[in-house]
């Protein structure tokens, strides 16, 4: 049976842990608000870029530009975004699992660019090629990091080492719906709307279509990676809030159970001491009477 001293020490430890988890929850709540604000500010930029690309493809589906119809390289590039730290439930595990299952589904060589330590370690352990790892900015993403990550993937594409670029990240739907998601960036997809303009118009490009694509696509890639990083950061903090809330509640439950045990133990020791005192007093009385 555990001693009262041991129980007291455990209670103290649980109380400290609860303080830490509560603080982490509060910090994550503040960070998620900030990140969500940044994400909301950025969202129209990415959406508008998606629209521009969709419109360009609607009018320019016939071109054989390398960003639309690349030569087969037998290899793809994946930009995978995860967190740097744990203590956020299944967030990192889910995005790592999605990346690996995506690689398996492709069934071809893959070269990865990682943002976040967790995905870098996960892919490294499985001997996948990690071209470049960005570890610094999972919680507070910088546009420069997104631009650099996109640039590395695009360089591989330009060299003909890969023929497609994907981004794997966690998309923020709501605080409770964090979905690992894969988005194809290149080659640019030909949609159902391609070639169909209801009014039969043509789009003009300045400079020409091919030159325009040369300029637009690197910007589009940076925009997509930055958007993905902001989504991932919001998801990480959101997952941390939920996870730390659960941890705090578990701490509270455990504290309550142990407090009960400790109080019982303390009570029984007091009762025992009282019994001993009463017994001793009675013994003394009977000796005196005898």
């Amino acid at each position, binding site marked *: 049976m555990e001693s009262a001293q041991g129980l007291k020490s455990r209670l103290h430890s649980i109380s400290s842990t609860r303080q830490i988890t509560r603080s982490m929850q509060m910090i994550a709540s503040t960070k998620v608000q900030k990140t969500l604000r940044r994400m909301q500010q*950025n969202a129209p*930029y990415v959406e*508008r*870029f998606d629209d*521009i690309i969709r419109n360009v493809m609607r009018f320019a589906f016939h071109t054989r530009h390398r960003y639309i119809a690349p030569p087969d390289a037998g290899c793809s590039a994946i930009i995978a975004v995860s967190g740097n730290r744990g203590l956020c439930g299944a967030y990192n595990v889910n995005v790592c699992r999605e990346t690996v299952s995506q690689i398996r589904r492709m069934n071809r060589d893959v070269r990865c660019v990682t943002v976040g330590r967790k995905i870098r370690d996960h892919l490294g352990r499985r001997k996948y090629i990690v071209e470049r790892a960005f570890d610094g900015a999972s919680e507070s993403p*910088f546009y*420069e990091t997104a631009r650099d990550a996109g640039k590395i993937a695009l360089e591989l594409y330009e060299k003909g080492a890969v023929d497609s670029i994907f981004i794997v990240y966690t998309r923020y739907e709501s605080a409770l719906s964090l979905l690992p998601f894969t988005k194809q960036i290149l080659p640019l997809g030909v949609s159902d709307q391609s070639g169909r303009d209801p009014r039969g118009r043509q*789009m*003009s490009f300045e400079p020409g279509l091919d030159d325009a694509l040369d300029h637009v696509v690197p*910007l589009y890639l940076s925009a997509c990676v930055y958007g993905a990083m902001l989504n991932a950061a919001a998801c990480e903090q959101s997952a941390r809030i939920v996870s730390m809330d659960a941890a705090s509640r578990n701490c509270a439950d455990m504290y309550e159970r142990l407090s009960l045990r400790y109080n019982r133990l303390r009570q029984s020791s007091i009762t025992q001491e009282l019994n001993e005192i009463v017994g001793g007093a009675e013994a003394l009385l009977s000796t005196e009477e005898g």
Partner: protein
Amino acid sequence: MDGRADRKLRLRVLTPYGSLCDREVDYVIFRSTEGDAGIQIGHEPFTAVLNEGLLVYHVDAEVHALVVLGGVASVLDDEVSVVSEIAEHPDRIERLINDLALEKAALAEEEKKGSMDIQVMELGLRRALVRIDVSAYSIIKGRVGIAEFDEDARGADDGGN
């Protein structure tokens, strides 16, 4: 009459850090890599790569301007969308340029221990040009300092939050 006089263009100017402009306008002029392009209501579908320069738009009798450092403009269905990594109001950009020039000059002085460097001289020249006219941005070649602008914008973004 096709009612063009009553209709307006929708102008959206977006950067990774937020929206700079989202309003109805009469007329837009931006600087593409091929020269200035003016957009009015009923313009044909058009996509242009932007050069560094001013984006000017007219709302009723007023003229407004934004500085746009590269990016893409798309015109479709009377809607002009401009997406750019760096775009700002001219007064803010001027301040950024001045800060940048001062910072770079101070750094150069520290590093070179007083020796004049061509880059520093170039920066001084650009700063003077910007003071004369904000549209002197077109003269800034090689995008010197763009990363620093970005950093500053990021700092402002973070600080603002």
